[in-house]
């Protein structure tokens, strides 16, 4: 890790550790995170950002997962990046993003001198707290970024399992031209959905690192039958499996991060999200088993990580979804294409360093 990256992670880590004491105050967390400029990490300097390497900016997202940061940093990073790519102003307040179900994309049409958009954006994160909601639609073979005003949307607010705000948006509205902006060909709705999945991979990897720490610590301190339960071989074996799953999630998330600019991202992010989701499920079952009853209370901090991990598993495509996408890509290569498909994914991915 180079110096600037470790400096960044140290600074962010200190802040997140401090904010950990108030896990429910998203507004306060947001303000502090924004003061540090973190939401602008992926924006180029011409647009007032820091133009950090993708790997560095996303390392901060993993850290946010690790400390259970209350604010939607990952969503804001991507949203700002898209605003910059589309030549729009970077949001002063909180930007967020929303995605359509990949099976039912938004429809965008030209009506007179305005645009008309129609469709649903289920479980959009942090809408009520946001200044602008961005999403991507396609019209006439052109990707377009939509800048939605949260106050003008038909919204059903709710939360995910982790009590994080998630709002179902039903769009049937006219948009002025300045709210519909061209995006490069590579940045389509699919790109956004994949990038959302990548954020969740990073957060899962970060949270699992904490879950592993907590569980090892608990098992080392909890004495039953005159010795720490960590001295029981049955518990050690479970901890080893938990550590393996945490390491696998970290590795899969690294792979996905490196694929940010890589054309192979369709396969790499699919594999990473499916595997991170699996890791979350297996790791949490063990973490709870080792913690015993204390782990299932709301007062104990594991619950915060559990509920987030269980949510992140399903957000931006569940394991089933991404396994199916990966399967389609394999099948498309035909019977003789499987092995080349796998080996081609193994090559170096320099994309994230650009």
């Amino acid at each position, binding site marked *: 890790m180079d110096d600037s990256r470790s400096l960044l992670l140290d600074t962010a880590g200190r802040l997140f550790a401090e904010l950990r004491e108030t896990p429910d105050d998203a507004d306060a967390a947001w303000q502090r995170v924004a003061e540090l400029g973190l939401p602008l990490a992926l924006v180029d300097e011409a647009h007032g950002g820091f133009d950090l390497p993708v790997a560095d900016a996303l390392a901060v997202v993993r850290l946010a997962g690790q400390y259970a940061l209350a604010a939607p940093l990952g969503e804001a990073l991507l949203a700002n990046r898209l605003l910059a790519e589309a030549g729009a102003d970077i949001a002063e307040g909180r930007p967020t993003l929303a995605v359509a179900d990949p099976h039912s994309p938004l429809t965008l049409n030209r009506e007179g001198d305005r645009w008309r958009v129609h469709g649903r954006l289920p*479980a959009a994160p942090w809408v009520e707290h946001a200044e602008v909601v961005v999403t991507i639609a396609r019209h006439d073979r052109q990707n377009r970024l939509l800048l939605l005003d949260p106050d003008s949307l038909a919204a059903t607010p*709710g939360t*995910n399992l982790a*009590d994080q705000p998630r709002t179902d948006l039903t769009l049937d509205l006219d948009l002025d031209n300045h709210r519909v902006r061209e995006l490069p060909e590579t940045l389509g709705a699919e790109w956004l959905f994949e990038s959302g999945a990548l954020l969740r991979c990073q957060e899962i990897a970060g949270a699992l690192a904490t879950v592993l720490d907590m569980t090892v610590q608990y098992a080392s301190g909890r*004495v039953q039958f005159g010795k720490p*339960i960590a001295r029981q071989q049955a518990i050690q074996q479970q901890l080893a499996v938990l550590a393996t799953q945490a390491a696998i999630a970290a590795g899969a998330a690294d792979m996905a991060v490196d694929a940010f600019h890589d054309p192979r991202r369709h396969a790499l992010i699919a594999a990473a999200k499916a595997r991170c989701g699996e890791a979350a499920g297996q790791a949490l079952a063990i973490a709870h088993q080792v913690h015993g009853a204390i782990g*299932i209370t*709301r007062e104990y901090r594991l619950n915060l990580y559990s509920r987030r991990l269980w949510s992140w598993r399903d957000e931006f495509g569940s394991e089933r979804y991404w396994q199916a996408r990966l399967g389609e890509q394999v099948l498309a290569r035909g019977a003789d294409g499987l092995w080349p498909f796998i080996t081609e994914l193994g090559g170096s991915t320099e994309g994230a360093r650009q």
Partner: protein
Amino acid sequence: MDINFTAEEAAFRDEVRAFLKDKLPADISRKVKEHKRLGKEDTVRWQKILNEQGWLALHWPKEYGGTGWSPIQKHIFEEECAEAGAPTVLPFGVNMVAPVIIKFGTQEQKDYYLPRILKSEDWWCQGYSEPGAGSDLASLKTRAVREGDHYVVNGQKTWTTLGQHADMIFCLVRTDPEAKKQEGISFLLIDMNTPGITVRPLITLDGEHEVNEVFFDDVKVPVENLVGEENKGWTCAKYLLTFERTGIAGVGQSKAALAHLKQVAAQQISNGRPLIEDPHFRRRLADVEMELMSLEMTNLRTVAAAEAGGVPGAESSFLKIMGTELRQEITHLFRTAAGPYALPFLNEALHDDFDGNYVGPEFAASVSARYFNFRKLSIFGGSNEIQKNIISKMILGL
């Protein structure tokens, strides 16, 4: 041994089925089947119906008002109840403390408590676990000191299921701190309305108030509430645990849940076709069904052995492990079936009077809560790791 049902047993099954069809209130079974939260009133109402029929006290001898049923009959009854959507009987009174009172209690205790338990006049809870005494129950610290005709109790119990409703708690307390840890424990019955008792809720992952902490601060308990001899409570505790583990395989619940899961999977559309036709999901469903079938056979073999006079011992440990792992796996498959609809969490939707909008299909509203809640299965009643220790010692002789 024969694990086929006899004609008499089949007739008994029909009788149970007819009773359930006739007497199980529709509103209650609907709540159970839709996984709504049950209130105290629902449980009490159902227990009173069972008691009128004489079918509440499955494990009691007949002379005390028990059914006198054979192990096979109990098995059939439990399976039919699960399938019909009958609520689980609150185990703490009828299935836990009552057998202890019958075996170790005085005549006065039997005369007073047993009829009240049958009539559901007292809601009982269990005072076993403490913050420092979970799997290692015998290290419990709640102290009872004899002062004249009372014990004075100080300490804390935890994970007290449904203690917020309780009128009575049965407690393991330390009466001799000098003795070896199993030998200084006594079994006390304590009125929850006694001054000095505080119940504090512990809200669980799924947002439910199911367990509590119970604090004892100079709580005066009459000595006649001691069951068995002072310092011999561990014998009562162990005796009770053998009852805690009856029916622990949960075969009936799993069968009912699996049938529901199949129904749901036939309706859910995934990648353009019913989920139940998805090869990967089918395979997992089939795995569970095979496991469940073998669990059922193992359970029946155990039941048949008990019928022939054998005492279920370490077998209950593998029933517990297999049974709880299967129930957890089924909740996992429910989450898979619900897909993204498992995600929105509507705590209110678990209440019967919910009239808001469901985000997805109605069944999906409860799947995550149940997945969370069922983490407890592999932890309570002796964690699955403890069960493995028992198997290694008692069956493998290690």
